[in-house]
């Protein structure tokens, strides 16, 4: 069973990494990182924070572009364009198909992250050599923790894409739902803060409602927990517990989404 899932993952990976879009996205991200070196010249202070912020943003943006333009093509368009017939005519169960696609997409995201992290690290090394004084507080460990957290967000976001692809037959709808999920996931923490406050002070909410809000913010995808740009740019130490907690959150959330996607897709017809 694992062999089959792996063979489909490799197929998905090869199809994805050879897509022209990935080269475009890669070049765009590299250009953004190179711009860091130029942009730093315009700043008078906190150059380390600017460099870290631009590089982490470039990685996130490239990840988003890969997710929205490539991942969606790899499953939703598979169904849209009937390429799925070529896979499903082989002895694959629907669940194996869904998992194979997801793991293949994760291979692509991992590769993209590996390349982008290497390039961004190189940019920061150059910046560090140019402006040594400004990078005294900079911490590589915190930087890589932020990259890892960003990767976890894409693990969850791509599970959403697989889930939406398994319930709709239009790649456009999958794209729309995924963008909405991303926006909702990024803003949910602000909504919670808003709900818990009144006129700038803490709102008087019953304990039950407080608890409901706390639970709901994690049941709905809380993608902002994966955004550690501020911590990385200020070299704020993040405890290992936090990393373990968000890793568990991403794994449980993606696992549930994938099980739901497998169940939905097993019932689905492919006319």
């Amino acid at each position: 069973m694992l062999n089959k899932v792996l063979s489909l993952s490799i197929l998905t990976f090869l199809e994805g990494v050879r897509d022209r879009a990935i080269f475009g996205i890669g070049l765009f991200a590299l250009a953004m990182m190179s711009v860091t070196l130029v942009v730093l010249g315009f700043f008078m202070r906190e150059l380390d924070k600017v460099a870290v912020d631009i590089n982490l943003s470039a990685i996130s943006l490239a990840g988003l572009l890969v997710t929205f333009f490539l991942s969606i093509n790899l499953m939703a368009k598979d169904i849209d364009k009937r390429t799925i017939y070529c896979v499903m005519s082989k002895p694959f169960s629907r669940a194996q198909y869904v998992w194979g696609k997801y793991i293949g997409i994760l291979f692509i995201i991992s590769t993209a992250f590996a390349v982008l992290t290497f390039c961004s690290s190189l940019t920061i090394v150059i910046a560090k050599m140019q402006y040594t004084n400004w990078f005294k507080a900079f911490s590589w460990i915190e930087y890589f923790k932020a990259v890892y957290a960003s990767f976890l967000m894409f693990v969850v976001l791509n599970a959403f894409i697989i889930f939406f692809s398994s319930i709709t037959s239009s790649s456009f709808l999958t794209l729309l739902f995924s963008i909405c999920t991303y926006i909702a996931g990024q803003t949910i923490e602000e909504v919670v803060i808003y709900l818990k406050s009144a006129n700038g002070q803490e709102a008087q909410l019953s304990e039950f409602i407080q608890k409901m809000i706390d639970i709901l913010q994690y049941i709905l995808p809380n993608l902002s927990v994966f955004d550690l740009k501020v911590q990385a740019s200020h070299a704020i130490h993040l405890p290992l517990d936090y990393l373990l907690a968000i890793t568990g959150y991403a794994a449980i959330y993606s696992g549930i989404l994938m099980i739901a996607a497998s169940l939905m897709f097993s019932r689905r017809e492919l006319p």
Partner: protein
Amino acid sequence: MAIIDLNNVSKSYVSGFLMRKKKAVSNISFKVGNGEILGIIGANGAGKSTIIKMIQGFIRPDKGDILIDNNKPFDPASRIKMGYLPENPYFYTNLTAVELLRFSTSASGMPKQLADKRIKTLLETVDLYPHRKQRLKTYSKGMTQRAGICFALVHDPQVVVLDEPMSGLDPLGRKMVLDLILDLKAQGKTILFCSHILNDVERVCDRVAVMDKGHLRKVFTREDLGNQTMEEVFLHTIEERSEC
């Protein structure tokens, strides 16, 4: 012994804003025996592709049963020994023919050495071996169709389902595919063959099923044709039913 067994199968599609049900096939029953070639002929929209999609497990029948070598089509086991060529094969265009075929063999659990040998033989048979390292997006329609035939046959299936296998092929390509089908027949493979090119069906099939507007109108053998051509029998069957 029947390898493909359809028993009273019906299927409707829901379409439009009012979710109206449209019957695609009604009460279809037929069997395809081991080593037999059954051709399904019919006009566009007769329900040929719907039957094939149900056999492949892409869609479920609303009523009736389908068994492929005693397995339900939704069971992946039913597809271990089955090869399928869709009407318009769409493949992953960034892959090469060899990569696509390797995927097929590994998904079917074929040993690598045997798979490599089989891939080479098949690509040579359909004249794609010189283009084996080219990406599929550079292939013409005929080349894609030939790659599709290789994809359906590479894991050496016992049952082969071909939906319009001559689509997009030039006369040479058509001859090549017909020879391939006859070769499969000589090897004792069971073939379900859907086409609206009646001459091709006449040449290779042991039995022919005529479909019209979702109904199975008639099943006849080559011997039943007598002095008539396939086209005459087909038109006569359709006209006869229209008058009824």
